[in-house]
């Protein structure tokens, strides 16, 4: 393992965080990135062109720091709680066999984590989605490339995409593949399969965001009255390279969304109501957290324009929960306003005009990981309201 030090001036903690995140995508041989006072130390395999590595990291640094004016950073709400637990929760969950890491960012979950996830999901539906009379929808795990193209995902977040493919419909290709697997003794490092020749061009990707299917489902429709509110939960996938080492940054995760589609006032007013409901929820459950404005990690050269516009127009808020033992926070929920981007892309009309859209999204696994990082696994230490609701829910659901 080799190390390359890239000297950089990084004064802003947010810039440092975004730079480290993006730098993992510079080279697939990067193993670790360590922040230093005057730059980054990059730990990598021997097969790395260090001059190119340094140049690319400098390029990213310019992308994140080339601002004539600082990004708008504001905290809109805080719920500060002196929480009782500061232990290394991931280690404890693994030792007690409640979670098992299969690969970076890929886990299996067992009780009580699984019951907590289902309780949380049901609570979001009862406390938020149902109050809007949201219609329930159910979506595929995959999304067609043509649909994903309309969401601008290929240009905004290309590094996240996980492609789904299959062997070409060609008997000789299928038989050759099967034979190669047999000869290698299974699917392993030694398997000699030329996927370029034997796999079809991917038609599908694994869905990276629940709400995309909602917009696809409304394609070419004119909405009744002021608009519609939908809720759905689905598996989502985002490939985040070496960043999967971060607390709660899963490759495969579950996203519950409440989605608003309609006329501007309808979407904006309901989005604001949903944020108030979210604030009520974190307050009732005594979660140590805050709500701040944010931007998506656009992985493109026009990062600055998109990110600053998103922040300036308050198009994205994140609810960030404290992770006490790491002295950090993670985003567990986001509220988004997309203006007419999806209404135009999918030809959804509200009245005569393209619909606007917004959503409130929850990462369920992250939310529960953050909760137990603050309160631990001993139920007697959990907040009274959370505990009573959880136990009532378990009883009424036969858990």
């Amino acid at each position: 393992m080799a190390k390359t030090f890239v000297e950089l001036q990084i004064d802003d903690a947010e810039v440092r965080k975004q730079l480290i995140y993006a730098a993992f995508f510079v080279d697939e041989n990067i193993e670790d990135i360590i922040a230093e006072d005057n730059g980054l130390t990059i730990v990598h395999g021997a097969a790395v062109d260090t001059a190119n590595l340094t140049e690319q990291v400098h390029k990213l640094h310019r992308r994140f720091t080339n601002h004539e004016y600082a990004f708008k950073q504001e905290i809109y709400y805080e719920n500060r709680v002196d929480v009782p637990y500061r232990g290394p929760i991931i280690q404890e969950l693994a030792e007690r066999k409640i979670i098992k890491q299969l690969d970076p960012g890929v886990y299996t979950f067992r009780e009580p984590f699984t019951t907590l996830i289902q309780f949380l999901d049901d609570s979001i539906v009862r406390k938020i989605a149902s109050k809007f009379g949201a219609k329930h929808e159910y979506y595929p795990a995959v999304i067609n490339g043509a649909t994903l193209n309309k969401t601008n995902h290929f240009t905004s977040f290309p590094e996240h995409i996980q492609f789904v493919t299959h062997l070409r419909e060609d008997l000789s290709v299928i038989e050759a593949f099967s034979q190669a697997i047999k000869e290698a003794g299974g699917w392993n490092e030694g398997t000699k399969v030329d996927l370029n020749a034997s796999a079809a061009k991917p038609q599908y990707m694994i869905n990276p965001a629940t709400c995309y299917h909602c917009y696809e489902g409304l394609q070419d429709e004119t909405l009744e009255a002021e608009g519609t509110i939908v809720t759905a939960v689905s598996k989502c996938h985002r490939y985040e390279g070496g960043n999967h080492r971060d607390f709660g940054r899963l490759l495969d995760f579950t996203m519950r969304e409440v989605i608003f589609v309609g006329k501007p006032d309808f979407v904006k007013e309901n989005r604001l109501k949903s944020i108030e409901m979210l604030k009520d929820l974190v307050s009732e459950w005594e979660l140590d957290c805050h709500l701040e404005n944010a931007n998506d990690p656009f992985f493109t050269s026009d990062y600055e324009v998109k990110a600053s516009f998103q922040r300036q127009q308050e198009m994205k808020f994140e609810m960030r929960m404290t992770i006490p033992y790491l002295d950090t926070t993670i985003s567990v929920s986001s509220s988004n306003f997309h203006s007419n981007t999806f209404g135009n892309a999918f030809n959804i009309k509200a009245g005569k005009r393209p619909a606007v859209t917004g959503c409130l999204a929850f990462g369920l696994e992250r939310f529960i990981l953050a909760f137990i990082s603050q309160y631990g696994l001993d139920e007697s230490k959990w907040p009274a309201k959370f505990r009573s609701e959880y136990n009532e829910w378990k009883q009424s659901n036969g858990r």
Partner: protein
Amino acid sequence: MTLDDIRSTLTAHIMQHFQIEPDDDEFTADVHLFDYGYIDSFGAAELTAFVESTFGIEVTKKDLMLHKMNTINEIATFVAMKQGER
């Protein structure tokens, strides 16, 4: 160019480029173009380029952060101010 001229030029361009119906009575010089779904972030970049080329001014990123440019009236006022600086 007067403020009215700037406002008229902007209105005509936005209506044509962003396909706004002539009988859309919600579309006024004071409507928030982004909140009310007339222009999204991609449209904002295009509109900025139009403003620069048509009115002969430079819209810096600092301008975008410091000046409210959410409505036609706000954009027109900003253009008039920049032209006055020349």
